[in-house]
């Protein structure tokens, strides 16, 4: 195969490549056939209407630290720049200057070309942010930049040169009244602070030579005697930098800043958000989904009715949060209006007098959890899945079977008849399962409280539910469970989302039908629970209606079951239900049993405890997929003996991270049995830091981290084996087993790039080779065979197991293994995989700022005939052979007869 490559190494490498890369590698014409990508920007915080370029565009800065230009015509992203994550990339000011925009984010001042998205100029501010920063005001001037940093007790005003970034002037304004409760905001060149306990407004002109706070009573702007503890809100007015909206409790006032003094302009009570364009103040009021933009001349205060708008927003839209209004000249010389509106469900709308021009579902930029739901089967198969009568005797079961098969045949006949005379495709919104169950309904729960059902084939949103009070739990989590799948006709499938209340912090539960998006129960399926949730789990045992109950643990360690009728299921299985809890930042993990529960009183009782010592704290607990199937119980060794896997379904990986002076950052992994609390195995790393990504499946764990000592990313692979015999081949019990711990094979590899997220592929029966999906920091998603990460890859020669390659410390990144081909996905937060009806196929959804869906075949399509498989040829050959066999038999018989007569 390679005569020229005589070097054994190259031969080895070549062998290696030809042998192990079952990579799919996409053809150009297949792009977009089985995958789709959707790009988002996030919640818009700043925007600039750019008139200088054609087509016209809106430059926006978002809460996801993204700077993007949206086409005014259709809302498409013209260009997008993803800035640094965290505080360093949060855009605090966005100023449009002709064909350029200037953004101030963290310590960076950048000027961008709006047409080409090129970075024209960048300045690094030589100014360290003050510790204990409460608020920062930024004033972007012609040649200088003024920062007003509010800290407790004072305001630090720094003037910096905009070109060089060096500090020019530095003043510390003492303000002993500033506390963490003080609300400050910037407007134009001033910093405005409201201190409710003093009922005073303080104004500081930041650009003044010697800035000084000037105070005036809240009553002077018409906000008299506010109740203590009422909410204070300072809102900028886009389009009028020297104006500010001060909201104290229900009172809402527009004030004008003139140097150090401010005066009341207008009472804006009742409106939600306001913006100014062309000297006209637009205030938005919203009743359900109808928004009204009232126009008032800012100078005279007269109503300019004809410039207002009344627009109906799409359903499932939340309350308006911010508004940007822009006036422009139409081709016939008149002036028209465009309004960019952001709502609490994170949707972005462009409004004009004609209505909603376009809108973007920016909630998708913050998807928190995903579930793949099987679509309902078409009518033909429904009867087939009808449950049998409760006590089937042979007659009734025979009748049942005959009846279902007759109905199936008749349905098929009618289908064939229909197909012949009508060529119209089925209506779009009736989604049915395809033959191989490759089409899924992806249920996405987002941080905005919006839950969406997305058709996996097209990426279109099929239904939406917006629950305004729903917000993620601690640690940015929404729990999404499938209580009932679509396999139990006539029962409808049911999913629940568990989160917390936006204001009270108590639990909120949303139950809905994932196929239609209809809420189950009262109030559209939304339930406010009245207690704080600390743990939730889905039971494996369904009730008599095939509904798996969700068990919720509140902060007083009381148990609640949803639906309430599921209590009987819990009681029935109380001896085998164990719950484990780990508080974030704590040093111990505790296990509880439900066995002491009685009807009406479900209780948790502690049965085990694991205490991670050594100054570390628990940073993550990673279990396995509950429904995971392990196809093969062992591995065949080179000497044909079998090494049995240690497959413990209750095993969880507990990561603890700590710091000590000798070893610097440490990471310890404990493999804990979550039923008995036994620590099966543990691995200790020194001088490593996160982010840590753990993939835990079957009998192996793969995790990645950053090695501080060698300054490289590493991946460690652990695999557990019982040994050459099994303790109990039929069932696994956490309470019984060998006295010896399982054998742990381990190996480490170097990764050339960092990882944003990692997961493994899942298939229906677990026969297909597992692949690990790594979302790289470069924005690609790479597939890597588990074989490459196998801890048993031999370092030295000797008899080798089948399929194992010699150990090479560095893992190669092949461009063929990038399942995202030429797409770059910034800020990937997680990867979701789901099995399909086809054993070889697995659907993948990568989410984060963008959504990317594809399907992959980890072991190629071993259970599918190729597209170009010639059925006719094979059929023809078989028939011909049969005919030949028959004729030759006849001939042979005749010959034999003739021979006999001779």
């Amino acid at each position, binding site marked *: 195969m390679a005569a020229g490559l005589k070097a054994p*190494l190259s031969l080895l490498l070549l062998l290696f490549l030809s042998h192990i890369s079952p990579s799919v590698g996409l053809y150009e014409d297949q792009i977009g056939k089985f995958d789709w990508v959707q790009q988002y920007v996030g919640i818009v915080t700043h925007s600039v209407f750019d008139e200088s370029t054609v087509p016209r565009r809106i430059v926006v800065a978002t809460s996801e630290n993204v700077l993007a230009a949206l086409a005014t015509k259709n809302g498409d992203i013209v260009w997008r720049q993803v800035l640094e994550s965290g505080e360093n990339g949060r855009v605090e000011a966005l100023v449009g200057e002709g064909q350029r925009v200037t953004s101030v984010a963290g310590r960076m001042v950048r000027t961008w070309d709006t047409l080409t998205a090129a970075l024209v100029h960048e300045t690094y501010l030589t100014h360290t942010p003050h510790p204990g920063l409460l608020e920062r005001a930024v004033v972007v001037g012609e040649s200088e930049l003024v920062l007003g940093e509010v800290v407790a007790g004072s305001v630090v005003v720094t003037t910096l040169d905009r070109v060089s970034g060096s500090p020019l002037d530095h003043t510390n304004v003492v303000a002993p009244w500033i506390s963490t409760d003080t609300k400050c905001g910037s407007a134009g060149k001033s910093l405005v602070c409201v201190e409710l306990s003093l009922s005073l407004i303080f104004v500081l002109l930041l650009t003044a030579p010697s800035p000084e706070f000037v105070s005036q009573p809240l009553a002077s702007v018409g906000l008299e005697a506010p109740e203590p503890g009422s909410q204070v809100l300072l809102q900028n007015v886009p389009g009028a930098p020297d104006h500010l909206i001060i909201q104290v409790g229900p009172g809402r006032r527009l004030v004008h800043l003139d140097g150090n003094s401010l005066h009341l302009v207008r009472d804006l009570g009742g409106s939600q958000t306001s913006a100014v364009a062309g000297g006209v103040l637009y205030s938005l009021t919203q009743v359900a989904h109808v928004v009204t933009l009232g126009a008032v001349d800012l100078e005279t205060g007269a109503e300019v009715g004809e410039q207002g708008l009344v627009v109906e927003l799409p359903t499932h839209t939340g309350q308006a949060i911010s508004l940007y209004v822009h006036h422009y000249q139409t081709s016939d010389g008149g002036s028209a209006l465009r309004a960019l509106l952001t709502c609490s469900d994170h949707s972005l709308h462009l409004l004009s007098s004609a209505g909603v021009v376009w809108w973007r579902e920016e909630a998708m930029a913050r998807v928190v959890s995903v579930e793949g739901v099987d679509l309902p089967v078409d009518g033909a198969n429904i009867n087939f899945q009808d449950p049998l009568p409760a006590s089937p005797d042979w007659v009734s079961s025979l009748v049942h079977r005959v009846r279902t098969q007759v109905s199936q045949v008749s349905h098929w006949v009618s289908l064939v008849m229909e197909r012949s005379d009508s060529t119209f495709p089925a209506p779009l919104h009736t989604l049915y399962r395809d033959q191989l169950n490759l089409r899924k309904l992806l249920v996405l729960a987002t941080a905005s409280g919006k839950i969406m059902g997305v058709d996996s084939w097209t990426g279109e949103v099929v239904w939406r539910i917006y629950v305004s009070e729903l917000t993620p739990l601690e640690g940015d989590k929404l729990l999404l469970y499938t209580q009932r799948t679509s396999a139990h006709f006539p029962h409808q499938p049911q999913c629940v989302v568990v989160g917390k209340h936006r204001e009270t912090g108590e639990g909120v539960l949303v139950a809905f039908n994932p196929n239609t998006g209809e809420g189950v129960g009262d109030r559209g399926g939304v339930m406010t629970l009245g207690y704080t949730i600390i743990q939730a789990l889905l039971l494996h045992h369904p009730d008599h209606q095939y509904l798996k109950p969700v068990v919720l643990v509140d902060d007083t360690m009381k148990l609640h079951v949803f639906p309430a009728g599921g209590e009987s299921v819990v009681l029935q299985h109380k001896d085998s239900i164990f719950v484990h809890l780990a508080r974030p930042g704590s040093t111990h993990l505790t296990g509880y049993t439900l066995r002491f529960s009685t009807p009406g009183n479900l209780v948790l009782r502690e049965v085990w405890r694991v205490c991670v010592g050594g100054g570390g704290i628990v940073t993550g607990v990673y279990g396995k997929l509950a429904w995971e199937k392990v196809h093969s119980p062992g591995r065949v060794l080179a000497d044909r003996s079998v090494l049995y896997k240690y497959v413990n379904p209750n095993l969880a990986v507990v990561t603890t991270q700590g710091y000590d002076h000798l070893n610097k950052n440490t990471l*310890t992994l404990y493999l804990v049995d979550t039923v008995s609390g*036994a*620590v099966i195995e*543990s691995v200790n790393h020194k001088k490593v830091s996160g982010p840590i990504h753990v993939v835990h499946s079957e009998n192996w764990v793969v995790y990645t981290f950053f090695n501080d000592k060698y300054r490289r990313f590493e991946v460690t692979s652990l695999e557990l084996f019982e040994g050459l015999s099994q303790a109990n081949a039929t069932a696994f*019990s956490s309470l*019984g*087993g060998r006295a*010896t711990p399982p054998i742990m094979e381990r190996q480490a590899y170097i990764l050339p790039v960092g990882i944003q997220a990692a997961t493994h592929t899942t298939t229906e029966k677990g026969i297909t080779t597992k692949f690990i999906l790594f979302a790289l920091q470069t924005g690609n998603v790479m597939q890597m065979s588990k074989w490459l990460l196998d801890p048993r890859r031999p370092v030295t020669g000797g008899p080798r197991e089948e399929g194992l390659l010699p*150990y090479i410390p560095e893992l190669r990144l092949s461009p063929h293994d990038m399942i995202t081909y030429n797409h770059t996905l910034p800020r990937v937060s997680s990867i979701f995989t789901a099995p399909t009806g086809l054993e070889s196929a697995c659907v993948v959804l990568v989410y984060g700022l963008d959504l990317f869906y594809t399907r992959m075949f980890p072991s190629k399509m071993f259970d599918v005939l190729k597209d170009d498989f010639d059925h006719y040829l094979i059929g023809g050959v078989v028939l011909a052979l049969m005919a030949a066999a028959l004729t030759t038999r006849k001939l042979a018989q005749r010959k034999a007869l003739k021979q006999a007569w001779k």
Partner: protein
Amino acid sequence: MVLQATNLSCLMVFFLAFTASLAFQEDEFLDGQLTLVIEDALEGGPDPIFTQRSTIQVRSVKSGNAVVTHTRPWTTDLNQKLKKLVEADDLYRIRVYQKGSEEKGYVSTFTKACQVFESRLSETLSLMVDSSGTSVVGVWLITPVCVCDGEENGGESDNVGGSSNGGGGGGEIITSPSSSLQHNTTVIIRSPIPSPVPDTATYIEKLEAMKNEKAEGKDNRSFLAKYWMYIVPLVLIMVVFGGGQDGGR
């Protein structure tokens, strides 16, 4: 300065004395000494009361050297309690804490009471100690009987045999099996495994060796071995065509 020096010498003397005293006490190197107290609950129920059962003297975490002393003799009264637990299908719970540092809390685990009963109090305790060897992370209780079959397992000799060391990194000490029933505990002390590191050195060595082999090793194969891929087709062609000529004649 003087003060500092005296302080230092004082410390030195103290340290020497300390090490000397330790050296007299123990004949092996000390790499972490722990005294652990085991408590169990024979009362059962949702809120059990724990009573002290045994102590474990861990002499060395590294070598897993530990001695178990059962501080509570097994009485018929206790046996009755255990039987009651078995009848209620309750759990046998134990917890372990460190003597002298009770504030660190305890670690605990459980097993089914019937498993303990049917194993005739024979058990293996596997204790995971943290990487610094100063505290216990978790405890694992394994009984020889995995599945209860409702009758007491008679073969005590089996249990004694089963308690010979099998632990990966740990040693064990067996308490003397008395004729009367008593806890028969095997202790395995384990600590976190040091992390694997990418083995670049061996790999580079392997590459070097390959390179050297290539540079040094001249091709000393025979002519046939080197050029068989050219010779074989040639011979084949000759055979085929030569055969054809023969046939034609």
